[in-house]
Every structure is written in C-alpha cells, then in structure tokens.
C-alpha cells in the first residue's frame, strides 16, 4: 500500500512536494492476445520456458543462538621449564580460562623458538595449565664440610654418595629404578707415583638395600643438620624416624622370604592350599568349641581368656588373634545376656531374695548364689563381691532349697510357720510357744531370727507329732495290756502253745514300744519339769549343727558338679520360673498330705482303738502285725520328714 492510497482513503490532498521521478527502467511489456489464459499463452510462444524458473537460492543461513568464535593456534609457555620453550595449542579466541599469564622475561622472548612469534603473544604468554603439577623430590643438601663431619662412611665415598643422591632425586626415589640404573664408576684416581700399585677400586656391587640404607642415613642426618629434632614438625619427625629405623638386613631377609614364596612349586602350593583348608576347617570347629566353652564360662562367671596384658605380643600369633576374637565375641555375648537378664528382671520375675535388695538380677544371683562361685574372681563389670558381713547386712542369702516365687514378707513367714493345718495343732504350737515364752509376734523379726523361729516351730511340730504318737502308742499298749489280761484271765491254763509265737512278737513289739515309751515318758517328764526350754535349745543346737554340717557336705557336692548343675539350672531357668509359682501350692499340698497322713494315722489309731475295743474276733496276730507295720511306717514317716528337711 502506498502513501497516496492512504491519503485517498482518508480524503487528504496529496501532501509534500511531488516526488522526484525515480528513473525507472521500463520493461517492455509483451502483450499477448486477450481472452487466453496465461498458461496457454505460455505454450504458444516458443521462447517462454515451459516451467517457471525459480532463481537458484542458497539455503538460508542458520541463525545460531551464539556467536561463532574462531579457534586459533595460541602459543604458550611453561613455567616448569627453564628454557622458555614456546609451544602452540588450539584455543578458542579470547579464551584464557585455564591459563595463567606467564611473565615473559626478555631472555625468553629472545629464545630461538622455532615458532613464529608474534609480538602480541610474546608479551602475554599464557602459562601451561599443567606447570603446577611439576613437583620434585627434596634432595638432601649438604656441604663438603658437613659431609666430612657428619656423613662420612667407610663404605661410601663422597662421589658415590653424591651420585646416589643425584640418582635418587632424578628418579624421584623410585628405588626399584634407582637400583636398576645404578652404574657408578669410580673415577680414576690420580696416581701419585708410577710404582704404586694403586688401581682404581672396582665399583662395589650395591644392592637396593645398601643404597636405601645409605640414602636414608644421609637424608636423616642432613635433616637434623638443617632442622634439629626438637623443632621438627610431626610429619618431618615421622619421616626422620622411618629413615633412621631402616634396617637393610631385615629387608634383605624379607626379600629372601618373598622370593621363596614366589618360587613355590605347584606341589608346594597345593600342599599349602590343602593345609590352609585344613586349618580353616579346624578354625571353624574351634570356633564352635570356643563358643561352647564360652557359654559355659558365661554361666560360671569366669572371665574368658587369659588375663589381659597391655602388650600386643600375644596377638602376634594366629592363636592369640583367635583368642582375641573369642574375647571380643564373649564380651558381645555377655552384653547380650545382660540385656536379656535386665529385661527379665524388669518383667518382675524378681523376688527370690526375700530379704535382699530387689535390684539384684538373676545373672548376679547366679554369680552370688551358690557357694562355688566365690572361688572365682570377677572380671571387669562383674557384680561386686560382698563380704560375709555385708551379705548379712544386706540380707543376701544363699538358699539351697527351691525358692518360692513372688515377694514374701517375713511376718508372713512367721504367721505361716505358726499355723498348722488343724486348729488343734495350731493351738498346741501356740501353747508350746507360750511355754517357751516366745511371743506370737516376734519383737525383732530379722532374717536370722525368723529362720531360727521357723526352725523352732519345725522342732515344735516334730515334738508334737512324736508326743502324739507316743500317746497313741501308750494308749494302744494299755488297750492291749488290758486285752491281754482279759484273755489271760480267760484262757488261763488253756492254749498256752498257741500263744507262744505271738508272745514273742509281742515281746519284740513291747521292746520297741517300750523304747518309744521311755522316750515319751522322759520327754513328758521334762516338759512337766519345765526344763523343756533348755532341752529344746539343745536339740535345736544339734539340729543346726547337723544342718551346718549337711550344708557343708552339700556345698562340697555342689563344688564337684557345680558346672553341670548350673548348666541344667540355667536351662531350666524359665521352667523354674513357672515352677516357682506353682511350688507353694505343691508344697502346701505336700504339707497337707503329710498332715493328712498324720491325721489319718490319728484317726486310724482312734478307729483302731475303737475297733480294737469292740471286735474281739479279729485275730490278734494279724492285728499285732498291722500295728507293728503302722508304727514302723509312722517312724519312717517321721524320719522321712526330718530327712526331707535335712535335704533341703
């Protein structure tokens, strides 16, 4: 759209000066006949191309989002070089990212570099990115004087030492290479007079170890010369230590061993492999064995392994190492065990120590309880060992009997001890106690007093039973005597023969009963005389003595097979827990049974007393026999009971 068109539309007059007519090239217009389409017309004229010609056009230049930067071959220097060699590499133009400017000295810029050196580059040569990796080993520096005073060595001349130090610096202390390239030829010594047989000594063959030893010697000494030991940094000091401690002979030996190891034949290797396999098998088994032993030790509370020493000598051998490993394992395991125990005690399974502090856990109980453990000293972390006094103080007991579960109070024990199954019995015990002038409620119920009290009650119970029995037997004897008299009166003179055997039996029986009778009599007398107390005390003493001795023997027994027992105990621990809870009932049941027996005995006795009086038809032979049996059973029962107690 032209400007004039716009003006036309807006109805404006043509403004401005008329344009200077631009010289237009008038194209001669070829006009074809009208009424024909252009295509057809094109076909008519020969000169016209059949197809439209598109001027050849290059692909449009891609519009890149960045400006192309040319590469150029940039010369650069290298500060690690001293000769000012200038090399060229291709870099993006204006890219000086990884090249620091290298100050070019006039001497450098004058170097006869082969490259054409444009002035610009010469003024600001970039340094090689890699120059900073040029690190050199610090070589020991010494003057002739220093050498003479400090570094002299019979075996090494100064020239050779210099050569060695140079070589070491050249190869950056790669000793393998240094030893390989070491070709020192001693200089021809100036002959002082022609006749002297002085010949240049042949170069000594130097091993790598010799060189190392010499170099380290020199290096360590120069180190000290430049920097006394006191002012060395720790790393320097370490290096110094290492150098002074170098032992060429040991190193040679080591290399010999290494060579032997390398030159093993196939058979040797196979044999070694076989041995190693065997060893690993043994070690595996050993581990098992150790674990078992370890478990055992854990139970016994023995600190595993040998006493700890602070030297590492014991860990040099494989055996020592194995032991160390075992120890570590053991510690782990004991920790685990402790955890377990803690959990258990937290769960409230505690209560085995009625008099003791409740903080003691079972693990400790195992170590504290049971006489044999006292033998062993505890390692670190084990429970504190209490003296006898302390044990007493804290009320620690070493019960030999099975403990009942749950918390018990002493007063419970007191009341329980004082109560028998039957009220008669209880009242009798009460009577006996009052007789002894012991109050039903103890004034000072310490653990010891309570145990003594219990023992007293036990004795009273026995006494009562024995008394009862004796009374019963007395009664029976009386009955039988009465019967006998009756019969004698009846059969006087008649069947004497028949009676004889029974008589014998009776006699025997009589003897027995007589004894019992006598005892009972005596006792009764004593009671009557009120001397009982002393008597009882004596008995008690005897009892306790007996107990003590028994305990002792028991202890011994336990000593001998403590391990086994403890093992079992440990395993049965949990079972025991349950049992503990059940125990009281059982114990009660047992007591019940006992008492029932006694009662039954009583009842039977009574019954028989009755029966004996009424049915005369019963053959007295059998009767007497039954009586004998019964009395025997009663005695055995009593003795059983006492032995049971003793066992406990």
């Amino acid at each position: 759209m032209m400007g004039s068109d716009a003006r036309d539309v807006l109805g404006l007059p043509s403004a401005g000066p008329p344009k200077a007519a631009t010289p237009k090239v008038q194209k001669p217009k070829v006009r074809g006949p009208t009424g024909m389409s252009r295509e057809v017309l094109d076909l008519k004229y020969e000169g016209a191309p059949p197809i439209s010609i598109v001027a050849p056009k290059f692909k449009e230049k891609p519009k890149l989002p960045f400006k192309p930067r040319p590469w150029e071959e940039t010369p650069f220097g290298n500060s690690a070089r001293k000769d000012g060699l200038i090399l060229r590499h291709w870099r993006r133009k204006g890219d000086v990212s990884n090249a620091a400017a290298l100050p070019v000295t006039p001497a450098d810029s004058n170097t006869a570099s082969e490259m054409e050196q444009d002035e610009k580059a010469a003024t600001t040569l970039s340094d090689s990115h890699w120059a900073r990796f040029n690190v050199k080993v610090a070589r020991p520096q010494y003057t002739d004087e220093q050498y003479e005073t400090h570094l002299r060595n019979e075996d090494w001349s100064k020239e050779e030492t210099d050569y060695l130090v140079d070589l070491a610096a050249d190869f950056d202390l790669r000793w393998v290479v240094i030893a390989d390239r070491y070709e020192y030829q001693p200089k021809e010594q100036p002959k002082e007079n022609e006749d002297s047989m002085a010949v240049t000594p042949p170069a000594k063959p130097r091993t790598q170890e010799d060189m190392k030893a010499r170099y380290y010697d020199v290096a360590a000494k120069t180190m000290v010369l430049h920097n006394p030991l006191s002012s060395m940094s720790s790393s320097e000091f370490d290096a110094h230590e290492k150098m002074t401690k170098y032992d060429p002979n040991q190193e040679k030996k080591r290399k010999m061993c290494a060579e032997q190891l390398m030159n093993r034949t196939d058979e040797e290797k196979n044999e070694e492999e076989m041995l190693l396999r065997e060893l690993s098998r043994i070690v595996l088994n050993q581990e098992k064995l150790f674990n078992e032993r370890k478990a055992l030790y854990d139970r016994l509370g023995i600190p595993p392994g040998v006493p700890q020493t602070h030297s590492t000598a014991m860990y040099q051998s494989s055996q020592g190492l194995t032991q160390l490993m075992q120890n570590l394992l053991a510690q782990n395991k004991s920790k685990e065990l402790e955890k377990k125990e803690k959990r258990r005690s937290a769960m409230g399974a505690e209560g085995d120590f009625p008099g003791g502090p409740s903080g003691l856990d079972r693990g400790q109980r195992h170590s504290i309880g049971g006489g044999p453990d006292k033998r062993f000293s505890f390692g670190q972390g084990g429970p504190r060992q209490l003296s006898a006094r302390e044990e007493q103080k804290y009320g620690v007991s070493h019960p030999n009997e099975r403990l009942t579960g749950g918390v018990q109070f002493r007063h419970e024990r007191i009341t329980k001890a004082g109560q028998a199954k039957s009220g008669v019995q209880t009242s009798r015990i009460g009577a006996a106690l009052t007789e002894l002038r012991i109050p039903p409620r103890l004034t000072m119920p310490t653990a010891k007093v309570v145990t003594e009290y219990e023992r007293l009650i036990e004795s009273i119970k026995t006494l009562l039973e024995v008394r009862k029995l004796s009374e019963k037997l007395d009664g029976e004897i009386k009955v039988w005597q009465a019967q006998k008299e009756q019969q004698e009166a009846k059969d006087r003179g008649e069947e004497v023969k028949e009676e004889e055997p029974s008589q014998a039996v009776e006699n025997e029986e009589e003897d027995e009963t007589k004894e019992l009778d006598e005892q009972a009599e005596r006792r009764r007398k004593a009671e009557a005389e009120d001397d009982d107390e002393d008597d009882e005390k004596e008995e008690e003493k005897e009892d306790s003595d007996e107990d003590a001795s028994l305990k002792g023997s028991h202890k011994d027994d336990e000593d001998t097979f403590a391990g086994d027992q403890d093992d079992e105990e440990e395993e049965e621990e949990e079972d025991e827990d349950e049992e503990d809870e059940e125990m009281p009932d059982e114990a009660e049941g047992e007591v019940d049974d006992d008492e029932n027996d006694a009662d039954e005995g009583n009842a039977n006795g009574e019954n028989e007393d009755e029966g004996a009086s009424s049915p005369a038809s019963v053959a007295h032979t059998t009767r007497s026999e039954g009586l004998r049996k019964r009395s025997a059973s009663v005695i055995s029962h009593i003795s059983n009971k006492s032995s049971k107690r003793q066992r406990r």
Partner: protein
Amino acid sequence: MATGQASTKPPDANEYGGDEISALVLDPGYSTTRAGFAGEDVPKSIVPSYYGLIPSESTPKHTKQLFGDNSINIPLPRISISNVMSKDGTVEDWDTAAKLWEYAITSRLTNTKPTPLVSNGLNDPNEDITEDITMEGVEEQEKPLGENPLLMTESGWNAGKDREKGIEIAMENWGCPAFWLARNGVLAAFASGKPTALVIDIGASTISITPVHDGLILKKGVTRSPLAGNFVSNQLRLLFSSSQPPIPITPHYLITSKTPVDAGAPAQATYRAFAPGTEPHPSFRHFQEERVLTEFKESVVNVWTGPGRLGGHSAQGGTNMDAARQHPGKPFEMPDGWNQMFPALDRYRAIEGIFDHKMALSDANNPPPSPGQTVTALISSSLSQVDVDLRPHLLGNIVITGASSWYAGFTDRLQQELQAAYPGVRVRMVASGQMVERKFGSWIGGSILASLGTFHQLWISKKEYDEHGSGIVEKRCK
C-alpha cells in the same frame, strides 16, 4: 543444534589431561614404521621399514630409493629390498632411515612447505638487502617439521650412540622445536593404561620383554630374542620345504593368470617372465614371499593352547601331538592357485618353537633356538633381574603387544605357561582384542604421552639441544 554446539566445545582438559600441541609420533619398527599426530588413536602413516633400491644403469653407485607400500611392491627391473632396521630392532642405516621417516611423515602428515613468497622468485625486488637474515629464517621454515615437536620411540636396548643420532636427525634435518625419545615398552604399557607392567612385545624380528616400573623401564630386566614373526615365517618355510611334496611359495607378482585347481593338485598358472637383466633381486622375492607367509600366519597358524606343550603328554596318557592330529585342519590357497587343507599339527607346529625350543624346526640357515630364547624363558630371566617385590605386580600386569602376538591362542598359551612357571602368583594378561591396538600399541602409547598436558615440560627443546648437544638425550630421556 545442541549436539552441534557440544562438538564445538573443547574437551575438558582436566578430564583427560590432554593438551595437544600437534606433536608427531614416530614409531619405527622392523616391519613397519608408524607415524602420526599425537592425540589420534591410529597412526595415519604406516610405511614399511623396507625400502626398494633401483640401481641406476649408468652410474651403479647412484641408486634410487623407493619408499612406501605403493612403490616397493612393484617388480621394477633389478629392484632389491633392504630394511633400514637391523635384525635386533635398532636402526642400521641411519641415512636411509632418516629419509624413510621423512617420507612417512611428509607423505601423509605434513606437506612439504611451499616455498615462501619471499624466495619463490615471483616477488623478487631488484636488490635484496636483508637476504642473509631472512634466508636463515627461511631455512628453518623449509625444514619439514618446523612446527611439530616429535616424539620418537626406541627399543629398550638402544645404544647411546643411536639415541643421539635420533635427536640429531630431528633437530638438524627436520628442525623440530622439541624432541623426545621414549621406550616403546613404556609406551605399550601406557597404551594399556598401566604405568607398571611387564611388556611382551612380539614384533617381526624381535620378541622383547620389558619390565616397566612407574613409566620407566628397568634396563637390567630387558630381554629379547629373535623368536618373533620372522622366525615363524622361517619355520613355515622349513615346514613347506620338508613336506612331501614340497610346497612352493609363489608370490603374487610372479603370477599373470591362474585357474582354480583341486586341493593338493599342482597349480595351473602362467608365470610372469622377466627379460634377462631386469629380474628383481632375490631380496624382492623374499620380501614378497614374506607377504604371502604373513597371510598364511594370519589365517592358518594357530597356537597349541594345551593342556601342556605340544611336545608333551596329555593327561590321558597319549602325546599331545596325537591329540593335535585329531584337530581340524584349515585350507589355504597360495597365490598361484595351489591349495591344500593344512593339518592341525602343522598349524600348531609352526609357532610351537616360540614356546618350546625342542619343537622348533631347523636347518643349516636356521639354527635351532636355544632354550633361553623361548618366551617363557625370557620372561623368567627378565623377572629374575627385577626386584622381588615387583615381580608379582609385573606378573599381574603383563601387557602383550606387537603384531606377531596376534596368533590365535597366543595369549591363552602364554597365560598357561606362566601360571605353570609361577604357580604362587596370579598371572594376568592385558591383551587388547583389537587388531589395531595390538599392532600399534607403542605408537598409541606415544600418542597418549605426547598429547598430555603434563608432558610439555619434558620435551627437549631446540634451545636445550643447542646448549648441551646431542648428549642431552642420555641425560633426559631415561
């Protein structure tokens, strides 16, 4: 677009430590001489170390030297073939070697520079006042390697004199701004990425064992023997001549046409006839035969991979030779059409001598190898010269390089032999599975080394050479 952009970015120098300065790497060997730019993965220019000589008819002293694959394989009249290298892997003919190397570099890598504008005669002013000064610079520029530092390789046993010769050529003849002489064993270790390695380089003329520690060879441990590629070729020649009927080796250039024949049937070919006086020298034929044998070695020869040696007894009681007879053969066709199935025993037999000197074939010209020349013996004697602490490490890093190590089963067999010799040590081979990497191991290592940024400080510069003379090589390139 993104990828295009990435490609324009220079690789992060910290990533690979490279900083390329368009250095050249020249790795002369007995069979070929490799040359190329540092930083590339294959040498661009691989030229045979053999060169052709055509004696001029008029002046017998004036001979024409031919370099390069394209010229020395043509049976030109009276052409003879020589090698610039000696049989033990060092340069023998320095003058020709310099020309050959220059050819290798300039034919493919750097062009001979066009004459500078100042001296091409077109812009000659009437009087040239400063001619002397400029001419000096021009002279420098005219030298073929005026812009490229050169890294050259040498064998581990190269004598000091030869080393100095190398820097002289580079500095004087070629005008290199910087030069370095590296041991090819070290470079082969670098190519495998190992600074410490026991390099077993099996070339055409020499098999060499080079213990390398931290990029430095242990000179006392360098051992070598001639039981290499050419030894196997000679074994094959002996094998062919001893077979019934003898197997002829007819090189390609003698055949004008051939018709296929059945296996074992005599060849039906028309042979090329040379006008009297224009026959190539026998060395030419030998060289061409070598090419046939190379093909044979590549396709047929196989290393007996055990168990045990070929001459030994198998676990079943029979000999391994009997076992080898059961193995399948391989067919091979000679250039003249003669072909045959080569039995497995022959395939194994040709190379067994490298491992077992007793199995080597010999005649008057080919003396039997000594027991100390086998690979295993070489390695053992090399290791015995090395510090005992280093031995297991070296055995754990055995780098195998050289084109003649490309025999099928070579690595397995060597592993087996060494493990048997050192049962207490773990023997590990590092052998590239790529033909190119195996063939040009030392060149590739040189390419890596010369393109490293940290290597810049090691170059012996022209200035240093001028100051200290050629003796600087001994001092610097250790």
